[in-house]
């Protein structure tokens, strides 16, 4: 009798929940925008500037800024519920490290599943991780916004400029181009 070679992985990864992007996409005018920053250097300013631009240029009503303390881990349920309960769209970031890029995408998918359009910002060095995490969370091909790596070394003015350059991607993701 020949013995089979055993599989050490425990089988293929999740994808149990299926793809479910929020639909319809957000109407930015009059919307409250959640800003979920992850404590990474310059992340808060990056999101704050995006929030300001969404208010000034797209007529968003305001922002709700929150911090995810453990950048490597998924957003806690209470925080997700708080933002989802009062915001019509959310911007998440900045994914600029091995663990936080993946968890930012996981958070984006979680908000989408909760019915809230979510734009995740990752630096371009972590696209592979971001894509892998999206697939792992059952959302292969999930779109996120990228900005050049690194962000942590930028001056405040450079961060604001970078946020403005990222704005079209964020609007496209949140509103599907409808603004």
């Amino acid at each position: 009798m020949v013995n089979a070679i055993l599989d050490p992985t425990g089988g293929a990864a999740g994808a149990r929940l299926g793809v479910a992007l929020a639909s319809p996409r957000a109407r930015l005018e009059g919307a409250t925008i959640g800003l979920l920053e992850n404590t990474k250097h310059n992340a808060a300013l990056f999101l704050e500037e995006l929030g300001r631009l969404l208010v000034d240029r797209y007529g968003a009503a305001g922002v709700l800024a929150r911090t995810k303390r453990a950048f490597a881990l998924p957003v806690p349920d209470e925080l997700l519920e708080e933002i989802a309960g009062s915001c019509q769209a959310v911007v998440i970031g900045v994914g600029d490290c091995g663990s936080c890029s993946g968890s930012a995408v996981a958070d984006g998918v979680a908000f989408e599943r909760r019915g809230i359009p979510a734009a995740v910002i990752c630096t371009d060095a972590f696209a592979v991780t971001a894509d892998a995490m999206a697939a792992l969370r059952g959302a292969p091909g999930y779109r996120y916004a990228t900005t050049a790596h690194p962000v942590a070394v930028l001056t405040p003015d450079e961060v604001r400029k970078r946020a403005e350059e990222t704005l079209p991607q964020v609007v496209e993701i949140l509103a599907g181009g409808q603004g």
Partner: protein
Amino acid sequence: MTLDPDNAQAAIEYCYDQGWSDGLPVVPASRPLVDAFLAQTRRSPKEVIGRNKQVDRECTVELAAINAAMAGCRPEYFPVVLAAWEALMRDRAAGGGGWQSTSGPAPLIVVNGPVRTRLGFNCGGGVFGPGYRPNATVARAIGLIVRNVYGILPGVLEQATQGLPGRWSICLGENEEESPWPPLAVAAGQPEGTSAVSAMLLRTCEFVDNRHTQDPEQVLWDIADTISRTGSLIFRDTSAGVVFGPEHAQLLGKSGFSREDVQAWLVEHCGRTRAQLRRAGKDGVGENGVRFADGTTDPDDETFEPILPSPQHVPVMVAGSRNAAMSMVVRVFGLWSGQAVPVEGVR
């Protein structure tokens, strides 16, 4: 029985093709082999021993056994693998994003107690490896579990910028017989004589070679100089342990230094002046605790900033040969749990 290398090679290649290898050949796991591993523990094969929230995966005793077998462990090593895994589960960084981190940290696994000699763990010369099956394969088993069970693959969800020498290969037996101090596991809460495993994550290791002094404080100053380098400072504070070679440890012990004395001495003396921190662009500390180039520090500010906040940030152990006065500074990623996990007895 004639051993069949052609079949063995084909099975090894099959495992490569499935993506189950860390780059070196694995032992293809069969039911009888894995059952021999499972016979070494009272725990149920289905028991969940690890859960990774980021990737939404769980590790069971059975999956750990398969990977330990593939790593080249003998079945009797399996309780040590389980204890090492449990010790890592208590490490905050390993439970956070450690396995995915750009820092690419390596587990440092330390084995104490009678299990060292019973299973043949190296505690002496060349203790950081290679050359000894228990040390090499227990450490490798952890790496295969992370890779295969959690699916954290290099270049994908594992984003080590450069990685470091020794990842998945550092497992030390403590040289208790030549240490002036109680075993690390005792300092970590276990009764004397317990076989137990401690584990922490490392950013790297750096030797301190100091063979020509009889002054214990000169040895400590030499170690403090290495620990105090600015390169490892990311946050306000850092952690650094010392794996003392027996000669340095005995010099300290004979001079009246307990382990706690050594830890306290290093906490007091490791650090940099604010001027030195400014020069390296690390004089500022943000709200998130991360250092950055503040630039407002006076370039002549000689105020000393200690960087090791507590003894738990300075794990101290003894391993290696007494053939030269060397020690190893180990750069701990995050904060050691300070807990050792007993090795389950054989049924």
